[in-house]
């Protein structure tokens, strides 16, 4: 095949992968909203939405149509341009992060090496951290441009919370990076496919339990979920930074939030729970079935962490704002530093 033919084939495969990833993720986001309502209902001994379609399965589609056909309100006092742009600042990076998450091992078919992620970047983790930080702009601009009291307070609180928890989030990953020695997500997963002492899967959660705990808490705070959803604390702030938003612009913030949840769940799986690795099985030796097994293992682990989000929501009460800040700055930040120092010293002794 010619050089240009190869490049065209590459681009076509990239576009197909992007469409699949985007489609799957939008579907998961839609059904996560339904799952959230059904699980919440189950935990509170209610039924939840079960009228639209069998067992309420068409509810997200009905919601989507309703969001699209609602009137778009642009408050008279708002800063129009920023007000209209803010939702895209949340939506745009939220989905782009999936580009680097590997859902299976690289395999060869018809003489073509096929990667199970869109982009295999050598700075994968930095790419994700950069994009997730970008969401803060959307939140604070939405709060400010609405020119109303509740959104402003909600936006400020949310921004302060997100940047505070970004520090422990970034520091908790460093332990993993030290062990693996690469920022490439596929290499981090490959490292974890081996066994520890011959029987235990060498997942980073075994080597970095404290790092995982800090990452889990910080990721919950980053995605503004309960027990850290100070920005949306309904009783005191009405709706937080998106109080003034309606129709699909409001839905964009929700989509961004749920997409962020999926990103966090996928990251927890990839960084700490072996990614697509099914323990005690060598996926790349099994051909097509190995790929399938890897994708299923990845989906199950990610699904578990998504369920954990809903589970925690109805288990833990909401923090108070000063408690939240104390947890982030005075407990998680020093703990993350201790984790790094201890990991470094242990590794130096073992070397």
């Amino acid at each position: 095949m010619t050089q240009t033919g190869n490049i065209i084939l590459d681009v076509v495969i990239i576009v197909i992968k992007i469409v699949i990833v985007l489609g799957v993720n939008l579907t998961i986001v839609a059904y996560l909203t339904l799952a959230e309502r059904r699980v919440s209902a189950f935990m509170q001994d209610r039924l939840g939405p079960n009228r639209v379609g069998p067992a309420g399965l068409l509810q997200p589609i009905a919601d989507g149509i309703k969001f699209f056909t609602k009137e778009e309100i642009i408050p008279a006092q708002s800063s129009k341009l920023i007000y209209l742009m803010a939702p895209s600042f949340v939506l745009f990076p939220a989905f782009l992060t999936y580009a680097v998450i590997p859902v299976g091992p690289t395999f060869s078919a018809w003489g073509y090496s096929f990667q199970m992620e869109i982009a295999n970047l050598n700075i994968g983790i930095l790419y994700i951290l950069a994009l997730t930080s970008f969401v803060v702009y959307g939140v604070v601009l939405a709060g400010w441009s609405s020119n109303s009291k509740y959104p402003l307070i909600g936006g400020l609180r949310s921004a302060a919370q997100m940047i505070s928890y970004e520090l422990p989030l970034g520091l908790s990953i460093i332990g993993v990076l030290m062990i693996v020695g690469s920022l490439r997500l596929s290499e981090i997963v490959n490292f974890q496919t081996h066994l520890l002492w011959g029987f235990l899967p060498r997942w980073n959660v075994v080597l970095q339990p404290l790092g995982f705990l800090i990452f889990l808490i910080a990721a919950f705070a980053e995605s503004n979920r309960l027990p850290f959803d100070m920005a949306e604390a309904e009783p005191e702030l009405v709706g937080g930074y998106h109080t003034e938003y309606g129709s699909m612009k409001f839905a964009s913030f929700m989509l961004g939030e749920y997409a962020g949840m999926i990103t966090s769940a996928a990251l927890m799986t990839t960084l700490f729970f072996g990614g697509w690795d099914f323990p005690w099985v060598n996926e790349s030796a099994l051909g097509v079935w190995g790929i399938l097994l890897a994708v299923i293992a990845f989906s199950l682990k990610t699904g578990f962490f998504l369920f954990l989000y809903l589970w925690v929501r109805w288990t833990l009460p909401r923090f108070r704002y000063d408690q939240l800040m104390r947890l982030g700055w005075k407990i998680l930040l020093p703990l993350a530093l201790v984790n790094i120092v201890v990991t470094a010293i242990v590794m130096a002794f073992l070397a």
Partner: protein
Amino acid sequence: MVNEWLPVFIFMIIMSVVVFVILAGTAFIGPKRPNPVKLSPYECGVEPVGEPRTRFSIKFYMIAMLFIIFDLEVIFFYPWAVVFKRFLSGSSFILIEMLIFVGILLVGYVYAWKKGALEWQ
């Protein structure tokens, strides 16, 4: 093989189109019947009182400044962490180096703590 960043740029273009369609689509499909009350700021049904962009707590600025300082220090950890294992085989110089860096970071952290910058009243 194409540049490894090419997929990201293609994804960005596709995502821009998707975001534009989502946000512009709703503006075309939805009805438009604005009236002054509907467009007024939300304040639980009461007439808005005072300027919405009032002064807010200095704490937010404080957190933002501390974040910038500490986040820069976090970023310095990343290249160090990636090469840590490779450099460790020769000598433990890289470990001592890092301990000094963490020490400097801790001095700033303790200072901020003692000055009460981390208190939230």
